Structures are given as structure tokens and as C-alpha cells.
């Protein structure tokens, strides 16, 4: 077991897959010579050469269009969209082209491609560089959606995404890039569509994603020590396919659900999870379903304001306490 940062795990995961499969190519802005603006792709150009690791112009529609065309003709591209906010400038490629063309062609074409992107807040970058938009992707049929919370998951889920025959949106939470964690030695491949119970508890289930997993865990510790409340924490890891089995079995056991979402409130993934639980576990619930989200507003840049709006450990703790009356 080596310890890597989440940032290093990105390059390690890409390298593992490029090594294995010559069809894997990688493109994006500043990803080759510069090693990525988040330094997530350092060394890849040196290792795999300029035919496989390519800098592009600032042309997000072209980046994803080219990835799509390459995927449908035999390659397995990984495309980087520098900040997830910029998915908006190429949303047609994501939502209308890549997501739908397999279906529209009745399965004649495959789109084994991965779109990696830096997601989320925490750097005081303001409203156009801090969004969590994984729910945008979840709302579009035909996309798989992944959001790892640990370095090991970065490698394992990235490998699974690259090997998956369908298009995967891979959300790297930028506030996690500097975090460290153990990663398995040798090749590491995980599975899409499996949530992980990061902490087992009895009284309430917290369902979280990305950077919110650590906060949910910290909240759970506080609840335990301060209130004797025992919380399960589920790390969703993938939104599509959604591991409803794990969600339902944990919520059934605990009778209570709190989602912890970095995204703004309306139509976030937590709403979907809530609607599933409200339908399928109606008779097992002991309390209202609660969602902790960023307020439904753009993100402010100033440090105190940004900290104020994101779901904090305090906020999570408070809301869970309320749920338990």
C-alpha cells in the first residue's frame, strides 16, 4: 500500500490504463506539457508521447466532439474539461450527442469514453469556477456519473470508467486534490455502481458524495460523542448507476435519511434519492427525509462567504439532531 494524494491518484489511474490499452488516449487544455492546471496529469506526456497525450485549443466543444468521434471508431479517449463549470460550453456534446447516440443508432455505435473534470468549491474561485454539477449529468439519460472521494477510488473508479463501454462523467472534487490516502499496490480496478458504507451506524443514514463524505463522517463522530447518535455514512461514489440497494438497505435499517450535497438545492441528486426512498421505504421511515445542501444561489468568492454557504459539519450535525427530534 502506497500513500498518494487524490491529485497524484489521477495521473496514476490514467497511466495505469494507458499502459494497459493502447487505445486509451488523453486530451485537454494544458494537460500535456504543463501536466494540467491542477497538476493532475504530470508525467503522462513524457510517458506516453504526444500522439496519445494532447494539448488542445480552448475549444471545449471540439475536445468532446473529437473524443466522441474517436470513441465511436475504436479508441477509448479520456477528455479533460478543466473545470466542471465549463461543461456548460460543451453541454450539447455531453447531453445531446455523447449521451444519446448509442440509443438513437439502436446500439450501432459505442462510446467508451471518460470526461474528467474538476468539480466543486473551496478555492474562493467564485460562481463560475466552483460549482458542483454532477446532478446536471445525472439528469441526462445515457451518461454514467462517478465522483470519487478517496485516492484509492480515484484510481479504481477511473480504471472502471475507462474500461466501461459507455460514456462516463468523472467528477474530481477539487477540494480533495491535496488529500492523501492509501492506494492498493499493483493494478487497481473497482466497479461502477457500488456505494460504500464508510461508517456503520444504527440511528440515521447520511448519504454523501465527494468532498461531503469527509464532512458527513466528521459529523457522525460528533453526533456519536456529543449526542450518542449512531450514524451510518454512505459514500455514493457513482450516481449512475445508482446503488439503490445499499441506500435502501441502510435507510431501512436506520429509519432515517439525511443527504449531504455540495450542489445547490433544486433537483440535486439528493432529491432523486429522497424521492426513491419516499416511495420505496415509506413504511420504514421514522422521520422526515432531510437534505443538507448549499443554498440555491450562485457561489460567492470571499472566503468567509464561501465557507458560510457550503454544508459544514455544524450544519450537518444540527440537521441530523433535528431529525432525531
Amino acid at each position, binding site marked *: 500500500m502506497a500513500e498518494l494524494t487524490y491529485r497524484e491518484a489521477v495521473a496514476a489511474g490514467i497511466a495505469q490504463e494507458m499502459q494497459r490499452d493502447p487505445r486509451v488516449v488523453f486530451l485537454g487544455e494544458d494537460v500535456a506539457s504543463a501536466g494540467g492546471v491542477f497538476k493532475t496529469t504530470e508525467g503522462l506526456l513524457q510517458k506516453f508521447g504526444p500522439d496519445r497525450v494532447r494539448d488542445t*485549443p480552448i475549444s471545449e*466543444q471540439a475536445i468532446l*466532439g473529437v473524443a466522441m*468521434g474517436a470513441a*465511436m471508431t475504436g479508441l477509448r479517449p479520456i477528455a479533460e474539461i478543466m473545470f466542471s463549470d465549463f461543461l456548460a460550453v460543451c453541454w*450539447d456534446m455531453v447531453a445531446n450527442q455523447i449521451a444519446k447516440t*448509442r440509443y438513437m443508432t439502436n446500439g450501432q455505435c459505442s462510446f467508451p469514453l471518460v470526461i474528467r473534470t474538476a468539480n466543486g468549491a473551496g478555492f474562493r474561485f467564485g460562481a463560475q469556477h466552483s460549482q458542483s454539477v454532477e446532478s446536471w449529468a445525472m439528469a441526462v439519460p445515457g451518461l454514467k456519473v462517478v465522483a470519487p472521494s478517496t485516492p484509492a477510488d480515484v484510481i479504481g473508479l477511473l480504471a472502471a470508467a475507462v474500461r466501461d*463501454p*459507455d460514456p462516463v462523467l468523472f467528477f474530481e472534487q477539487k477540494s480533495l486534490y491535496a488529500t492523501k490516502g492509501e492506494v492498493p499496490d499493483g493494478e487497481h480496478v473497482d466497479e461502477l455502481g457500488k456505494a460504500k458504507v464508510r461508517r456503520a451506524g444504527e440511528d440515521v443514514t447520511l448519504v454523501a458524495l465527494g468532498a461531503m463524505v469527509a464532512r458527513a463522517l466528521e459529523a457522525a463522530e460528533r453526533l456519536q460523542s456529543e449526542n450518542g447518535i449512531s450514524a451510518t455514512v454512505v459514500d455514493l461514489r457513482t450516481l449512475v448507476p445508482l446503488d*439503490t440497494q445499499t441506500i435502501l438497505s441502510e435507510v431501512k435499517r436506520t429509519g432515517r435519511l439525511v443527504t449531504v450535497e455540495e450542489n445547490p438545492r433544486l433537483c440535486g441528486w439528493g432529491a432523486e434519492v429522497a424521492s426513491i426512498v419516499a416511495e420505496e421505504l415509506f413504511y420504514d421511515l421514522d422521520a422526515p427525509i432531510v437534505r443538507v445542501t448549499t443554498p440555491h444561489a450562485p457561489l460567492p468568492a470571499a472566503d468567509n462567504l464561501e465557507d458560510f454557504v457550503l454544508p459544514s459539519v455544524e450544519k450537518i450535525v444540527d440537521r441530523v439532531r433535528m431529525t432525531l427530534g
Partner: protein
Amino acid sequence: MTNPQASKPKAEAPGPKEDIAEAIAPATRLKLFRSQLEIRYLEKRAYDLFLQNLVKGTSHLALGQEAVAAGFGVAMRSDDYTFCTYRGHAHTLVRGVSMAGILGELMGRDCGLTRGKGGSMHLTSVEHGVMGSYAIVGAHLPIAAGAAWSARYRGTEQVAVCFFGDGATNIGAFHEALNLAAVWKLPVVFVCENNLYMEYTSIETVTAVAHPAADRASAYGLEPVLIDGNDVEAVYRIALQALAKARRGEGPSLIEAQTYRHGGHSRADPAKYRPRKEVDAWLARDPIPSYRQRLLALGFSESSLAEIEQEAQRAVDQATEQAKASPVPPTDIAGRDVWASGGSEWRN
């Protein structure tokens, strides 16, 4: 009909043009003739079927623009890629796709190319290199560039040919695709069919330059290429040139083919926004009768041409019957093929 001759059809304004070259083989000429006819008859049939309420949804005919698809279709290698728009029946057919597959798709029948899932705007036949028809203007230009990138990476010498309209030259994806394809020297041929109109609006009223594609070529370091898109041999020659250039690793081409659609934008459109004189002038330049004339002048026999016409018509008739006889698709396929697994499950 003997010596090849280095013709330079670049930057030629459309206009009557006789004896453009002697280099095209007789068999090829007949192919060009047949291909245009097949498109013409198929599209006319599609229109009839729409009038009979058998074509559901929309459909966008290319009547009058046959020469572009035909010229390229005959020039392309069988493993080259085609990317087309909603107005893509012609470009699909010329790659050897079955007429019944096309008509069936328009009619929402099970024999359709995608069993009715895609519809008339999304004709696709990967086994024939038709990598899809795209209904959002401009999107397929970068996608075609990607297929070209892949071909070069895999070392196959395949070329991707991407057809689009004049209106598509004003959307962002056009710009991004052209620049990237030029910088990466990709084997892709961008073919703008300038039929003077977008849906109901004339292209000149919304475009800063007279030739929406050709006048932009230099912005991507490319040579301007403007051809008579109603002259199937001019199209064929430029296609050969551009395909060869791409195969030699010399990068993309951007070709503007001037042409005209005889009918409306889509089945809903009576096309009343076009001046009668303009329509008449272009009808007089219909690519098919003029090519027939030329072939006769070149010594092809009336009977050989008539035979091709009859064969093309028969093929369309047969395909029509086949499509009419096909059942509608079973509803369970509506939930299939979202994923490579064949299914559409989003949960476990």
C-alpha cells in the same frame, strides 16, 4: 474520354460548364448518374409517403442537391466515414445502405436502419461507414474530426467526410472543429452544401461574408474551395482531390458546394419565402437532367441511361413495398440500448 487532365475546379463560381474534363471513366460516369437518380427517386418517394401519412415525424429532403452526395459517394473508399445532418438520406444512401432501411426508418418501421429509434434525422449504418446523422446544427463537425483523429492514430488511411449546410458555418462548433482539424492536420473533409437558405431565412442576411464556408477557409489556414455543387463531376473531382490530400496526411479541406433545394426545408415547409425567379433559375440547373444531357453528348446511349432510370425506380418501388410490409417495432425496444449492455437500467 481518354487522357487524364489536371483540372483545377477550385474557386469556380457555379454556371454552365461543358467539357470540364475527359478523365472520368465511363463506368464511373454511369455510377454518378445512377447514384443521383437513386437519391432523386428515393426522396420523391419519401415525399409521396409523407403525403400518404406514412412518413411520421419530420423529414428533410435534398431534392436538387443530389450531385453533392453522389459525387462524394462514388469517390469515397468503402471504409471511409460519413457524418451527415438531418438532411442526410442522400449521403446515407450513396454509401450502399439499403433503401428499405432508409424508408423504413422514415416510416417508423421495424426494418428501419435503427428500427425507428433514431428517426429520419438520425440515419446511421455503421457497417457502411455512415457514422450517424446529427440534428443539432454543427455538432457533427468536431465529431467527424474525432473519427479522423482515430483513423490516423490507428493508421488506417480512412478519411472522414462531413456534410453540413451554409447555416452551420455560423455556429461555434464549426469554428472549433475547423481550427482543431487544421492544427492537428486531420484526415477530414468538410463539405458545406450552400443551398442559400437555412430553414426559412436566407443565409446572406445573417452572414458577414458572401461565401459562408469558402470565405472562412483562410481563418483556418486552408485554401478556399468553391464549386458548382450541381455539377456531379466537379464534385467528384474535388472529392478525389480532398480525399487523396487527407490520405497523404496533408490535413483537412473545406469545400463549399453551391446548390439549391427544390422543395422546402422540411416536410412542413412550402418554401414560399423564395423568389419565384430564383427557384426557376435553379430548377433550370437541376443536376440530373443536365448530367443526362452531358452523358448523351459524350456518347452514352439513350437506352443505357433509360435502363438505369428504370432500375433505380424499380429499386425504390421494391424498397417501398418492403418497408410498407414491415411491422412497427415492438415497444420493448424503447427501453433497450441506452447502455452497451443492451439495457437502460440506472439503478441496481
